[in-house]
């Protein structure tokens, strides 16, 4: 069982057993919220922000800001507030992370949280690490070579190996928590592997997200607000080529029909301006993919219709009727959207699905959204955030409060 180790130091080809030694497995966890852990993450933040190579990767910059001491301390202090006086927090032990194979830096967030609660971490990353991930790993490696972080280095390893069930099985049996990114297929392939009776899985299934725009509010908005909305929407939809689970695939306008029509027209026009401003063009393979996906979609529906023919700098948008919403739960990505008009937010309630993750909104009050979420009553939707924050990581993700999931509570009476 050969693997490649990226962290704490690079080892090309090595037997799994000589990495997951008795010493590694049996070592003590660090205490939760140890100062060293917080300082390490803060040092990592500085290192990312100071790196010339990483400057171009907006999502890593966002990660670096999230890792700053001030942010981490505030996350931890609000978490600690939830803990009753007669309980203490303890690490769960060995945590096995399966990272998704796209660049999605998201697994770094769950790793950081796991590290903070004191867990020992084994992270399996993709076999095809790209430049971005490579540069990031070499920065962490550099950091860990400092003896100052020896306690971190001995408790955190990042590895890769071909999808071999035997390795997955072996590590599963050692783990106290498995954090499964990578969607339904990955989750199912791990569920059938035995783990310890006490092992807990935190799994992130395939999810679907949408943007909901209050057309009447949009109509009334100032030019500047509309312009800003398109910029925020760009961040939600076009980072990661619309392939993150939290990227919107659907755009829903609510309000009177005429209002929806007008808003849609202006909204997509502003988005086009934003794409032009950013010089965001499609490569031929993506343009082809979107065209084919459009034809596939319209061939299957009597109501779906493109609002405009596909063209450079235009998002591909298929308008569909409310009754067809359930039919289109996939997207090819790269800037391909389904659009639908509803009379109000209430109309969305019966359409919400357990697979729905992020609702990014514009033009609704907190109160309206709380009422809406209460009526949905857990049938779907894990997060409700303003447009522009769909991809912002929060320590509550997919309905989990991650610090809670990754730690355990000891009751002392």
């Amino acid at each position, binding site marked *: 069982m050969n693997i490649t180790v990226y962290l704490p130091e690079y080892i090309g080809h090595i037997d799994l057993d000589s990495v997951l030694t008795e010493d590694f497995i049996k070592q003590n966890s660090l205490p939760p919220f140890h100062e060293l852990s917080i300082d390490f993450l803060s040092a990592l933040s500085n290192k990312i922000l100071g790196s010339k190579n990483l400057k171009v990767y907006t999502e890593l910059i966002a990660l670096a800001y999230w890792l700053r001491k001030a942010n981490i301390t505030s996350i931890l202090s609000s978490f600690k507030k939830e803990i009753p006086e007669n309980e203490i927090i303890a690490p769960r032990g060995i945590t096995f992370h*399966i*990272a*998704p*194979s*796209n660049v*999605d830096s*998201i697994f770094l967030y769950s790793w950081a949280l796991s590290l903070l609660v004191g867990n020992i971490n084994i992270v399996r990353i*993709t*076999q*095809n690490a790209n430049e971005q991930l490579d540069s990031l790993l070499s920065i962490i490696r550099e950091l860990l070579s400092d003896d100052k972080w020896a306690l971190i280095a001995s408790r955190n390893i990042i590895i890769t190996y*071909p*999808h071999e069930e035997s390795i997955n099985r072996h590590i599963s049996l050692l783990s106290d928590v498995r954090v499964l*990114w*990578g*969607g*339904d*297929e*990955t989750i199912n*392939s791990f569920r059938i592997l035995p783990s310890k009776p006490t092992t807990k899985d935190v799994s*992130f299934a*395939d*999810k679907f997200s949408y943007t909901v725009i209050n057309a009447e509010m949009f109509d009334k908005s100032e030019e500047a607000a509309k312009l800003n909305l398109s910029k925020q929407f760009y961040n939600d939809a076009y980072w*990661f*080529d*619309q*392939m*993150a*689970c939290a990227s919107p695939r659907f755009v829903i306008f609510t309000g009177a029909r005429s209002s929806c029509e007008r808003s849609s027209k202006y909204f997509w026009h502003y988005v086009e301006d934003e794409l032009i401003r950013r010089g965001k*063009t*499609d490569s*031929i*393979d*993506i*343009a*082809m*993919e979107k*065209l*084919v996906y459009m*034809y*596939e979609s*319209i*061939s*299957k*529906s*009597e109501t*779906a*219709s*493109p609002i405009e*023919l*596909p*063209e*450079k700098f235009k998002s591909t948008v298929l308008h569909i009727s409310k009754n067809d919403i359930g039919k289109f739960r996939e997207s*090819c*990505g*790269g800037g391909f959207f389904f659009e639908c008009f509803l009379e109000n937010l209430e109309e969305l309630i019966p359409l919400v699905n357990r697979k729905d993750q992020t609702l990014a909104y514009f033009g609704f009050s907190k109160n309206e959204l709380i009422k809406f979420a209460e009526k949905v009553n857990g049938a779907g939707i894990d997060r409700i955030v303003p447009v522009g924050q769909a991809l912002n990581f929060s320590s509550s993700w997919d309905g989990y409060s991650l610090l809670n999931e990754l730690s355990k509570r000891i009751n002392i009476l």
Partner: protein
Amino acid sequence: MSAIEQLFSLSEYSIDNNMKRELLLSELNLLTGFHYSKCPQYKNILNSLHLSNEYNFKNIDDVPYLPVRLFKSQKIQSIPESEVLKVLTSSGTTNQQVSRIALNRETSLLQVKALASIITSYIGKKRLPMIIIDTDTIIKNKSSMSARGAGLVGLSNFGRNHFFALDENMELKTEEFIKYVNNYKTEPMLFFGFTYMVWQYFYKILKDKGIKLDLNSTILIHSGGWKKLHEHAVSNEIFKSELNEQLGIKKIYNFYGMVEQVGSIFMECEEGFLHTPNFAEILIRDYETWHTLPIGEKGVIQTLSILPKSYPGHSLLTEDLGTILGIDNCKCGRKGTYFIVNGRVPKAELRGCSDTHAETVLSSGR
């Protein structure tokens, strides 16, 4: 005489492009209307694009197209199951979905007729002794046929005394081959095979064995795409000169065709360009606007053919790249549009949160 009858009655590659486009257009308009009324998916698409009431396009560019990949994901046909004569499937590699093209008697006959018109204009009307550089196991199942099988069967009509040069393990039956060639060396022969197989399992074997021949009146027709050979840095020029050098074959013609439009194939001429036959036309589209591009500009190939009556495949957007080099003025003397193929549109790699599995599929495929 109807447009389709005229196109069949005129001799191949003889029609001025303006007139040809007019004839094609009137037939393509009829086909668009016909498929609209018979094929539900096609109807949805045209309705969705607000093209539901016009089957009278004034310009061939306006005839709506379907991306060819649609035939891989769903069954798209304009005839009831009871009329299906045979189903053609594309030769997809592992993990790839294959196209399924349903043919009725009429379409199948038109395909045979069109292919005959094209091929006989190259090799003459007489049937030639024929060597098929493939194995006969590929054509055993007649009701469901792969693109490779359909190609072989289609072309075998133009030969006699057929000899399949490869055994079921794709090994060249060298002795029998030499015997066959010696037997017919006084007359022209027809060789047919798929480009890669001709190179890999035929030419290379003969070269390795040091067998040189002088088959200067033999005609070799081959097809199937250049992707694999280009990976081995074998261009069309190298292909032709090597086969000429080793076997003395001078008349070597590649053709560009697809299982979704069997029959109206695009044959290479002596100048090395692909020609549109009477029954077909090509257009090149810009991937940034999807508008047609002028002569000389590279883009995505759209192929139009008047043969498909059983499925809406009369206008298809391929995933191949090509360039039109001219119309009616090729030095070879053939009229019509002539072009080259510049390769394939690369496959998009959009990867999401849910894709650790993609690797699994690929690695388990190995």
